[in-house]
């Protein structure tokens, strides 16, 4: 076995080479069991009484994989969030899980391109190796922000990544696509969205929670970005009619109603 001690130069080069600078986009999301209601003439989500969590895709998948890569290779994981001060608790949670430091861009975003442009403005001269986001937010469900960041920064983009490995400055990835998965590789900086499979959820431990208190959370002002869409109104779906029950001994009746009433088979 060759020891790195015999090759001090290689050790230093490898170390510098592999030390990674990662940015993870973290969004605040209402807990899945939250009551969904709107306010301001149904133009805005009613946050009163809502418990907020880190958007699951961002926390379980993007953040944890980024932390694992830095544990293996050295470097840093910065989180970035576009939102007001009500986001700080979820940002602290990301720091407790193991992010190195955090940035919050102080704005209440109303469309995905605004979020993406603000993040891109911040990231553009920072030299991140990988910018990671989640597959989608569970409130906006757009699956748009990471792709938009990639376009703003003219970087390659890989969506729906279920596996990410690094060797030197080359990433090998497996990504979901319609009907299967793609095997891909990218050299140099890129943007990606993470989904199930890339990492396992981590629960912050006491030491993490304590150290999160002293980690840096930088607040950035940027009012240079305009929106290109706005929400006229939010609506709740019409309540479903009562479920029509069919006798378990008479599945023919189910077939009949699916055929004649629902006209679906």
């Amino acid at each position, binding site marked *: 076995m060759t020891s790195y001690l015999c090759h001090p130069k290689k050790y230093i080069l490898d170390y510098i080479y592999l030390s990674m600078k990662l940015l993870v986009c973290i969004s605040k999301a209402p807990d899945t069991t939250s009551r969904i209601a709107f306010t301001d003439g149904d133009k805005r989500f009613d946050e009163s009484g809502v418990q907020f969590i880190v958007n699951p895709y961002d926390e379980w998948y993007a953040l944890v994989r980024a932390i694992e890569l830095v544990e293996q290779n050295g470097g840093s994981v910065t989180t970035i969030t576009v939102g007001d001060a009500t986001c700080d608790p979820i940002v602290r949670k990301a720091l407790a899980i193991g992010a190195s430091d955090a940035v919050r861009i102080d704005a209440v975003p109303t469309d995905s391109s605004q979020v993406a442009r603000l993040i891109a403005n911040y990231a553009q001269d920072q030299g991140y190796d990988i910018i990671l986001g989640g597959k989608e937010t569970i409130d906006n469900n757009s699956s748009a922000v990471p792709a938009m960041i990639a376009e703003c920064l003219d970087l390659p983009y890989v969506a729906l990544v279920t596996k990410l490995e690094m060797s030197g400055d080359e990433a090998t990835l497996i990504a*979901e696509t319609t009907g299967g998965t793609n095997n891909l590789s990218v050299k140099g900086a890129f943007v990606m969205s993470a989904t199930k499979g890339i990492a396992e959820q981590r629960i912050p431990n006491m030491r993490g929670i304590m150290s999160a208190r002293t980690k840096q959370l930088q607040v950035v002002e940027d009012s240079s970005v305009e929106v290109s869409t706005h929400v006229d109104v939010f609506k709740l779906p019409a309540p479903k009619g009562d479920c029509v029950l069919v006798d378990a001994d008479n599945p023919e009746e189910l077939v009949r109603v699916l055929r004649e009433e629902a006209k679906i088979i």
Partner: protein
Amino acid sequence: MSVLVYISTQAGRATNAGLEVASYASALDSGEVVALVSGDISGDGGLGAVGVSKVLHCADALTDNSQQSKLTKEAALAIGAKIVVFSGNSIGNAVAPRVAISMNAGYVAGATSLPEGKTYVRSVFSGKATAHVQVTTETSVISVTPNSFGIKNTGGPEAAVEAYSADVGVARVTFNGFTPTSSEGTVPLPEAVRVVSAGRGLKGPENWEIVEDLAKALGASTACSRPVGDMGWRPHHEHVGQTGITIRPDLYIACGISGAIQHLAGVNQSKVIVVINTDPEAPFFKAADYGIVGDVFEVLPKLTAAINAL
């Protein structure tokens, strides 16, 4: 005025997702519908019949979304399109947002119906609400939720096919191969029109035959709840719900699934939901159109037989 629609093809024909967005683009009634195809196409790929009048055909099958996005932007500028339409599938979700940024266009992700003016309806809060989103820029980029609009045959004449190319730069993401998850011939879950899904109520992977038989009788795809995927009873890609795939079939039959909110998030936009569960208090019945309170091991074989008897 014209509308540009981005189309994926398979074996020379537009995919069902492609035919659906082309139908949507023609129903917009905002001028000539031009389809952009990168890759293989034979004839007009079936696009004339759904209202496309011209196909711009780029012979290179581009796999890098930054190249696909450049190609789309150039084509949109070339024909003066004010609306660019994509399917909200995995390719569209990667390319459309890039195009929106590069064209300074407002983006609506996952429209579920035709707009009123420039206001589109999309599903938010994992299916628990809708947002009516207005585009305030001159150009709009729209992705359409798969299975929300359907394929509408207009009986139009064969579309003219023109060779098209643009400077799209080099691929920076290297494509090293594709591994199919669904076996040959079966419809990818997000595109399936009928889905039979099962949960922990099936007790074990060895019991899936009755689920598969029902699916086969209906020409449906199979899906499952998350614990079933996590325990390895079924492949992960079948897992639907908040952390899995979101589907919107015409018919969703849930067998032995309790109907937890995280599961419903992935299926509550189905047109008709049928629930089969031994527990009359299972939350799924509240989201269902039709239900059978009963044991899957007895009900499913009978139901399959009743369908096969049609």
